[in-house]
């Protein structure tokens, strides 16, 4: 152990995808993707609709099984780990299409995420609906995303923007190392979107973030590195200014967005 754990922490990426490939029938959704995400960075993935961004996130979070290649996280190969195991290891995701417990209260949604990481749930007798050990931390996460005022409302009654905030609160409640955020500002108005970006700015350095986003202002405001995905393949990957200057990227994607 001459080099000690600090060495691996400095040199090994937190998340590493190698030759990751996923087919849907005859369509390749992820085409031999190699990608490293360093600890602490905000890494944005952009690309036109159908580029395979959500499929890529699904493979990292464990909901989509890749056909080939490998995924490693914090030095461990997790290619075949189920979704819940990856969550327990510290990978949290928010969903592009809101995925919540809509018949639960807002607070109960987050409390369940806290519970998921507070040991096993084979506790069949004690009332969990008033358990301060779950509710208090949950309230804290709601405050963090600015939803504390809606804590006791049924999740289904929230606005679209509030659903996005709740998605984020639930992801945070799982004590993640890596946040996979699938279009956190999707469908938000200008103000809401700006507030979300501001919120994510505050997470810089606290979490490693892999961000899928269509809003280029948000991407260039947040990202340390950007990877451009096109037809399942990595077109370019680098610092924001390099991506902005990349001719192929401009043709494939940014050019369209500026029209």
């Amino acid at each position, binding site marked *: 152990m001459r080099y000690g754990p600090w060495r691996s922490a400095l040199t090994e990426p937190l998340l590493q995808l190698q030759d990751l490939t996923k087919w849907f029938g005859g369509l390749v959704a992820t085409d031999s993707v190699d990608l490293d995400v360093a600890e602490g960075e905000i890494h944005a993935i952009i690309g036109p609709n159908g580029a395979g961004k959500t499929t890529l996130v699904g493979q990292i979070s464990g909901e989509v099984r890749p056909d080939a290649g490998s995924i490693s996280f914090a030095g461990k190969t997790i290619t075949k780990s189920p979704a819940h195991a990856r969550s327990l290891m510290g990978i949290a995701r928010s969903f592009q299409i809101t995925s919540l417990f*809509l018949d639960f209260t807002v607070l109960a949604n987050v409390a*369940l995420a806290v519970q998921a990481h507070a040991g096993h749930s084979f506790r*069949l*007798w004690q009332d*969990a609906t008033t358990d301060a050990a779950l509710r208090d931390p949950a309230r804290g996460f709601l405050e963090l995303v600015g939803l504390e005022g809606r804590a006791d409302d049924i999740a289904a009654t929230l606005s679209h923007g509030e659903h996005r905030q709740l998605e984020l609160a639930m992801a945070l*409640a799982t004590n993640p190392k890596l946040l996979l955020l699938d279009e956190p500002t999707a469908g938000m108005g200008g103000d809401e979107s700006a507030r979300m970006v501001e919120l994510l700015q505050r997470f810089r350095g606290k979490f490693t973030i892999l961000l899928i986003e269509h809003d280029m202002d948000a991407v260039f405001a947040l990202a340390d590195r950007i990877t451009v995905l096109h037809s399942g393949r990595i077109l370019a990957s680098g610092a924001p200014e390099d991506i902005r200057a990349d001719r192929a990227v401009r043709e494939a994607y940014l050019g369209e967005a500026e029209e």
Partner: protein
Amino acid sequence: MRFSPSVAVAAVAITLLAVVPLITNFLEEPFYLGLILRLMILAIAATSLNLILGFGNMVSFGHAAYMGIGAYVVGIGTFHAIEDGIGWLANGFLHIPLAIAASSLAALVIGAISMRTRGVYFIMITLAFGQMLYFVGVGLEVYGADDGLSLYQRSEFGGLVDISDNTQFYYLVLVLLLATLYGTKRLVASRFGLVIRGARSNERRLASIGIPVYRYKLIAFVIAGAICGVAGVLLANRTDFISPDMMHWTRSGDLIIMVVLGGMGTLFGPLYGAAAFLLVEEFLSGVTEHWQIVFGPLLILVVIFARGGIAGAIRALEKRPD
């Protein structure tokens, strides 16, 4: 507890159940005592089904099989107690744990396999398993095959309670029903219960926040099977008879109807559903033997116009501004 129509109706229902023997004994109508006894036993079974069907969204179409297992424990035990003179085989303190063990084991195997599928496939597999157990019963020649078996004695509970006396039996079942309801109330509000209800709401999300959903759903399935096994012990003693028919898929269907009619995912819904089912059956079958011709459309009307069943309709009264 806050006063509300739901609470009031539940309190009235429990009070009524508690005084039934006083009334039927006074009026010398033992038939009705037996009827309400059966109602409570089926309410226990329906409550156990509701745990997985109503709270966990697992539509098990083979739930009567566990009731059959419990009933056969009593039938086989008392059969050998009398035939072979092995007295302890008639002991109810043996029957209940044995029924719980046997129905849990069956539920564990059936659940472990069925839960690999979803939706209609889950329904069909549980139905197939239920029918398998039905045919096992049909194949048990020693125990009457498809004719079934008459019980010459009921389970013995030492000096504690003599269930050959229907009034004592009635109060034992009432206590067990209340225990089942209270246990269900605790369970669905516990961490375990929140996971099960979360699985009904959004199973995919549950996995993504770090919960291994399968094992929780499976344990819920086993708990439901175990409770239903106890209901089977009671039912065999109530009817003094066991037969494979208790496990037939139509019996499982009856339990589903009770849960849906009473209100899925509500605490007292299965009790109301069992009551409505049995009372309507009793009343209509007195009018015509084709009572199901009336009962069927009645059920359709409830499903269309009262989605939350009877308990849902009572709850709707609370929300109405007056």
